[in-house]
């Protein structure tokens, strides 16, 4: 059990609700960032979905949580969800929820991964092959 001396009791209660009484305080906290939501509202975000910050709306748009702002800073250049999660040190599930907020506020642009069916695209495969050859 992680040291809890500094954790106010109110948060401790909230945390144990979210986690079903689990003791992993470090893991529970992220979901407080999402207002207790544990599922994204939409399934746009796979691990390799590219996310890029959109230009801020005129007037700056709605006020954002600090985590949202951090995400926007990190995705000035296109970055995939898995990398974002690593840089934020947050679970992908939490990041996906925060990204849903940003998408709804039109603050990010998302690009889904290259669609891969079993009818694979020869040109795509050749490209991957050439890239691996250069390794």
């Amino acid at each position: 059990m992680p040291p809890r001396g500094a954790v106010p009791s109110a948060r401790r209660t909230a945390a144990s609700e979210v986690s079903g009484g689990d003791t992993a305080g470090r893991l529970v906290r992220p979901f407080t960032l999402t207002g207790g939501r544990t599922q994204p509202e939409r399934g746009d975000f796979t691990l390799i979905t590219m996310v890029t910050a959109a230009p801020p709306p005129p007037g700056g748009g709605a006020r954002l949580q600090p985590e949202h702002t951090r995400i926007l800073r990190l995705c000035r250049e296109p970055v995939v969800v898995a990398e974002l999660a690593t840089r934020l040190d947050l679970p992908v599930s939490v990041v996906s929820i925060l990204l849903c907020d940003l998408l709804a506020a039109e603050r990010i642009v998302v690009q889904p991964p290259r669609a891969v069916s079993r009818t694979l695209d020869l040109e795509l495969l050749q490209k991957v092959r050439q890239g691996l050859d250069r390794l």
Partner: protein
Amino acid sequence: MTGSDATLQKVSAPDTVKILIAGGFGVGKTTMVGSVSEIVPLRTEEPLTTAGLGIDDLNGIEEKKATTVALDFGRITVSQDLVLYLFGTPGQQRFWFMWNDLAVGALGAVVLVDVRRPESSFAAIDFFERRKIPFVIGVNGFYGEHPYEPEEIRESLALPEDAQVLLCDARERGSCRDVLIALIDQLIATTARGSHPSPP
């Protein structure tokens, strides 16, 4: 095009594809990811969902201290407009429910096998076989040693004749690259033949 105007929507981020590196716990998946990745392998940690915990319970696994699943991944920039991600699947079998999400949209998989305990990779082989996800077997020779021939390993794993079994060393970039190339060549051959297995 710049990122600052209305064309941002179309400023193309590179396309992304992924390959899974699977196999039993401690078989060298992260080592392999690290050997070919252009970045130090990154790790994300997912708290187990309630669904996952339920499944754990059904499996009768009582180990409660594992509250997260770690996922290691690396990146290979194939070209300016295409990036390949490699994901090491969680090794413990009880995390199989995550593999479904991981497998969606994957080009294929490398199943690493440790010949000292091949059974630790059975679940991964079954998983990809059942879902008709293309894969190759990479036999990770610990200390670079390969006591068995690929043919013997193929037999002991009850793999079909056309399954590729490659001896490799997960620590060596060239060796890992060759395994990945073998997988891609297999995909190219299948695609060129036009004999596609049905999608997962």
